[in-house]
């Protein structure tokens, strides 16, 4: 797991498959290590799942048309779903 963290710290992005290849193991193993490190707070998941402007402080939910998370002019609901997961070393 130390080696996995070393790879994470060098600043390059890698896919799980590439990590598995470099660590000479399989994807399941990398996944469980990431899951563990995430649970132990060593790495954290980067969340960018824009649900409209649900997170934006500017409009704070006012002025949203009914049934929508988005105020006019903001990013629409449902964009960028299948974008993969990203983690970074804390």
């Amino acid at each position, binding site marked *: 797991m130390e080696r996995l963290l070393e790879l994470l710290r060098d600043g390059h992005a890698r896919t799980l498959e590439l990590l598995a290849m470099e660590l000479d193991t399989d994807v399941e193993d990398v996944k469980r290590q*990431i899951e*563990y490190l995430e649970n132990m*707070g060593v790495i954290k998941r980067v969340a960018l799942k824009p649900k409209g402007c649900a997170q*934006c402080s*500017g409009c704070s939910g006012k002025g949203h048309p009914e049934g929508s998370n988005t105020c006019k002019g903001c990013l629409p609901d449902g*964009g960028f779903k299948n974008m993969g997961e*990203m*983690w970074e070393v804390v």
Partner: protein
Amino acid sequence: MSTATIALLGQPNSGKSTLFNALTGLRQHVGNWPGKTVEKKEGSFTHNGMEYRVADLPGSYSLSANSDEEVITRDYIASGDADVVCILADSSQLQRSLFMLADYAGIDVPCFLLLNMSDVAKDQGKTIDAKAIEERLGIPVIPFSATDTRSYDVFYEAMGRAINNKTRLNLNDLKKQYESIKGYQEICDLIPENALPGYSSMWAAVKVIEGDRVVSAKLKNAVGAETFAKIEEIKKNTQGAVATGGCKFAWIDDVLDKAVVSGEKKVTLSRLDRIYTSRVWGKPAVILTVLLGLIASFIPALPLMGVGSAVIAIKEPVMNALYSAGCPEVIVLVIGDVIIQSFSYIFKMLGFVFGVTLVFGLLEEAGVMARISYVFDNTMGKLGLQGKSVMPFLVSFGCTMGGAAGARVIDNWGQKVLTIALAWAVPCGAAWATIPMLASIFFGPGAVGVIVAILLTMLVHMWITAKVFGGKLVKVEDRYGMIMELPPYHKPKWGSLFRYVFGRTKETFVRVTKVILLVCGLFWLLSYSPSGNTSVLYRIGVAIEPVTRFFGMPWQLFLSYIASAVGKEGAIGVISALYNGGSLGTAFVDSMNGAARAANFNEMMLANVTKPEALAFIFAMTFNMPCVVALAATYQETHSAKWTARIVLYYTVMSLILAFIAYHIGLLIW
């Protein structure tokens, strides 16, 4: 009737609730754990004349102190209230889900292991030798499927065995693993057995190494401050949770060694991923994908563009009909030159918005977008940014405002400001609707070349911007590493994709209509010259033209460029209003006559604007300040009027420089 209590322990999705419901049926009640808001589910059942109480423990990843659930769970188990703990693991991913068992090891309560979802594992082509695992662990281990009520006999049998024989986990191999951690043995020796009732010294030592605050506090009470200070001192030199986690996984692998045989083992990348993740071909492949995507987006755009052309075709008949009905000239002109003309552009632009959203939505759904951001992660690093900056950039292709707001994921202020500054260089959805439209008028199939040039310029622009602002905003040590789990390629869900695309198009329609009508109307009004006098705009425009010519823009284009800072959507409307509305002005009317009669934007443009001028305008508009809303979002995210103003000024200057370069390159070509 004799009773026994059984506790169900497992990670979320291990099938615990299914088992609990199947065992207890309606004999269950839900309460809270004392003093906590964590749900407590209990129930009971009878089997072979014996009554069993069942406690469904909260689902959690492990037994660390990361949450209330985990602390409640382990304290409940260690209290000895349960006679036996039933640990559930997901057979389809034992490597991962046995972690709970490894974390449990060292709690002194009898247990047995259910390899749940064994049917799923079987479908995956895995064979699991539960007997071999049972021998290694020293507790009953059974393959099980909580959803299959016929398999419950083996459950009752294993439960009975565990209760009667008080089966406990064989810890020898795990201990050996832990002994390889520097400092473990010393810490272990300082903790007397049963210092924490219910927990072994091995378990307590491991939790201390992991930095478990709850255990540390209890231990300090149990062993005294002096001994605990020694433990803390030794702990400093351990590698903490990384080391103990490694031991747990190594132990799990030993337990499973040769007991689990799975179908596929070797890591392989799909052919497409081998290209995308290749150091040499990754970037060209991504750029090619984006280009093909842009070209492909013309196809779904065509029908809506057809509507746009149809709208313009009714302009002449409508205007003539209104004239003959005796309608005042001003109203006829507003209807013809402002409203009908505007809607023609609006529909043409919507065509591109629809096409781009559809094709890029498709790429995103299929999992290609994730690869694009992955491939460019290292480039982000070179710009002094974090890998995750790429996400705001990608969002900016749709909407710069979204990109600026999305920069919120970046926790470092300097990098956030730099990310927003760079995101401005990414042409937004409105620009992508305007660029192909203008480019195809002037350059025909060469429009693709213009788009390529825009994309390349974007990269160079971002690089220069990073150099200009980066030094002040980002320090080298602020950079982070990143892993990305690329989503599997999958077939897009057409229903939701089209809902998204239509929603986006509709929203754009509403917004664009407002902006275009407003801007178009305003500029038409300013350029309207009923008495044969020249209009206000004409006079201003001609006065500054010597300067704007320098950047390759006649005054009409320059004013459109100014308007594009309000909203790119407005730029086209302004061009049209200026070239059209001026047709009443005496000086302007001659040059405009032919084009105005044709009532066709394309021909009007070709008659009045040269190719180098068009190129200059396209670059100036694209790299101008994105729009007022993006400006507001930037201020909101940076909380700095100074930096917002700097970025605006920088983009204005840069866009004019780019226009100048494009114009002169254009002059060389044409």
